[in-house]
């Protein structure tokens, strides 16, 4: 299978995401000004500071030409993964519920955190076990997930929260310890921690690889069906 990894001006983690994808499949960088997704099987919106995070995180990238195609791809059921800034972009694009607010300390924090897998029967977590802990680094200034009570209730009721910070690990103040959330249809997923930075024992843990493996396995199963 082939992943497409977006590159906006100011994106920083696209090469990291590409390398992570290439551990389980192929990967192509997609330029923000193009509209052609080049037939990829899944899209990764990577981390960084698209358009300098000016105006509001993710607010400008959401209007990039490539995002029109990503939104259409998502509406047709294509798998889309948003990491950190990518999560923020997908929330701004209305593909994911809630919003990301500044961390409660108002500071950038880079820290290895433990996450708990809430649901394993999804496109993005099928290589994990329910209740499994994943050690993955997080690094951001604006990662406090928030949703109004009614929306939050709905998200929880639908089982859309796939990852939560383990007890004591929620440094950004996210509502209900939410670290990663999917859309109602289940084909779009965003998380603040960086699974692409946890794919090699040399540079830390390999727990993040399970996210990419899950997307790959889902795609392979669908192709076989």
């Amino acid at each position, binding site marked *: 299978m082939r992943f497409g990894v977006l590159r906006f*001006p100011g994106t920083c983690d696209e090469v990291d995401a590409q390398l992570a994808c290439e551990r389980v499949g192929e990967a192509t960088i997609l330029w923000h000004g193009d509209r052609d997704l080049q037939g990829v099987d899944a899209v990764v919106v990577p981390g960084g500071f698209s358009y300098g995070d000016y105006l509001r995180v993710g607010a400008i990238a959401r209007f990039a030409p490539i995002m029109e195609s990503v939104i259409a791809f998502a509406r047709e059921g294509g798998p889309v993964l948003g990491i950190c800034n990518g999560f923020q972009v997908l929330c701004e694009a209305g593909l994911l519920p809630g919003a990301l607010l500044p961390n409660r300390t108002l500071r950038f924090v880079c820290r290895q955190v433990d996450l708990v897998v809430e649901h394993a029967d999804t496109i993005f977590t099928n290589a994990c076990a329910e209740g499994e802990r994943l050690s993955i680094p997080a690094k951001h200034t604006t990662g406090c997930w928030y949703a109004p009570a009614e929306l939050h209730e709905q998200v929880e009721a639908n089982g859309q929260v796939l990852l939560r910070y383990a007890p004591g690990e929620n440094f950004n103040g996210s509502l209900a310890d939410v670290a990663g959330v999917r859309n109602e249809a289940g084909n779009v997923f965003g998380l603040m921690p960086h699974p692409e930075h946890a794919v090699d024992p040399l540079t830390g843990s390999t727990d993040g690889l399970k996210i990419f493996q899950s997307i790959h396995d889902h795609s392979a199963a669908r192709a076989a069906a």
Partner: protein
Amino acid sequence: MTAPAPDAPAAVAPHRALGLTDVEYELICDKLGREPNAVELSMFSLMWSEHCAYKHSKQLLRQLPTDGPYLLMGPGENAGAVDVGDGLAIAFKVESHNHPSAVEPFQGAATGVGGILRDVFAVGARPIAVLDSLRFGELDSARSRYLLEHAVAGIGHYGNSIGVPTIGGELYFEGPYEQNCLVNAMALGIAEHERLTRSAATGPGNALVLFGALTGRDGIGGASVLASAELGEGDADKRPTVQIGDPFAEKKLMECSLELLDRELLVSLQDLGAAGLTSSSSEMASKGGLGLDIHVDRVPLREPGMEPFEVMVSESQERMLCVVEPERVDEVLAVCTKWETTATVIGEVTDSGRLRVLNDGEVVGDMPVEALVDDCPLYDLAPEKPSAPIYPAPARTLLPAADTDPHAILPELLRSANVADRRPVFEQYDCLVQSRTVRRPDEADAAVLALPTTDAIGGTHPAIAVSIDGSGRRVACDPYRGTIEAVLECAANLACVGAEPLGLTNCLNFGNPEKPHIAWQLSESVRGMADACRALDVPVVGGNVSLYNEGPEGPIYPTPVVGMVGRLPDAARAGRLGFTVEGDAIALAGPFTPSLPGSELAKLRGEPLPDGLPEVDVAAVRAAQEVVRRAVRRGEIRSAHDVAEGGLAVALAECCLGGGHGARVDFRGAGAEGERLEMLFGEGAGGFVLSGPRPTVAALARELQLTFVGEVGGTDDALAFTLDGDATMSWPLAELREARARGLADAIDG
């Protein structure tokens, strides 16, 4: 062409206001054969400033060895570079941004990072790491806490946003930095050998293209007004001379520059830093032995109505200058458009040997390049060792009752600002982006970055290691030996991860060199650095000098900051500092002769700085480092940590906390009763704490002075000492962790 007419003489001699002496002004008139006009005078004042001309340090710096077996590019280019094997080069350099940071810490530190990154990608290398070296006054001062908070935020803001990891650094708090903080930033980049790019302008008729941010009035006179004079009253008025950074613009500029080089569209490339267009253009012309015509009216401006001299001296950030063959200009402009980066042909290379500034076709400045770049007079220093102490004794912070009680001293040292956990600072930096970080800031004595491997996935990765260090207080005690210690400390840090030093970069932060005692500190320090570099066979690949670091209350501690880069063959074997396996033997290794004067404990006790430090046997230290390096590479030891601030007891505590294991340490017979404190808390070069299986560690004793002092674990998560007279004492790790965590966290979050 008619020679530009000199401007009408002003009431106060304008050259003095710009920092030039009367003699220097006469020399400029002599070189031009006339009086300079306003444009020329402002350009000369920058090029002949201390910051650009190194007029008080150039002669001294000639002592430093600048060649070695791994050297690819030495001093003189935007950054130096060493060979790390497989056809790859690492380019690196450290630079100061002290005075801007003292005036406006957030922007000063941010643009310091931006500037050093441009130096690295200007030589064609993709930046892969940033480190920073910071000095502030004591943490009980509100000004120091303000400077710390904002400088750290500025470094994070810039480095994080641009996608270059900040992987290490160092941080000290000492009274003499109260008014004049130090912010030194180091960057490393990676390139294939043949991609290394020089800055010499070649080929008369080639186009000169300026690309990046628009040119504004910010930073005008930064090099001469801020960087080359002492700080004092009215520094708030200097705020307009601090530049404003835009990391998003730099990110685009960096990707654009690297793509231009990838596509081989450029003849040469140079960044615009201090003294802006003046310095970058004249350096390019000088290196190529050619001339340049610059049309200031073609420079895209941020605000209308800027004078030609303002365009030439503006220090607006995020700009680059390149030389392009005429037939490639369109392609270059297209790449810049892709990256949303403004690019303009602003001039051309000539064979005149002159830098000409034109405005709407009229010549408004015309100077021989040589006069601007090479003819600034160099000054001999008049060093004189001071007869009385320059620095007051530090304020006592330890309760007198604790003076000789190790049980009370250890937590106090761990809590003290220079020893406490750096996590509250380094957590504000992204240390992971680019996926190369093998050792993060608290995992080992040096940061380790994996290099690409020829096997796609799973092969052996060679790696580089990097460390930055320089304790100003030790250098203040003894500029010669203190500087040797700083170089040895960096090499020791590299040894602890298994890396062999390849080259170093330095930033010499000193006071006013026109004062004899500062001149003495500077010349002794450079002599020490030269001797240490020769003894280790490590060349200086480039660096920076920052002088006039003085406030109203006196000079800073003399602070030579050393950044050293090394290589290790297998990243998977990179050393760690923390104890990892219960039952491992713990050894103190190396030619270590600890002493208390000048130590962190002496500081806590409020003792005055000693006049001199003990002699260091550099050859013996080097030999010990080689044995440690080899043992780490072979996997014979499981942890290695060098003994530094706070001495052996602090090093042991750090090893326990780093690995999450307690230790039982037996000091009986290790020293006479009266030497107990020296042994536990004394400092000096050459000591390592090693742990590993007893037989393999014991085997090292054939080549290395080594004493077994204890065992990992064997206690209930505590560090326990047995001392002479069978006195015992122990500390729960939780207590030590809390003490070490609080030191900086209280100041930052408080």
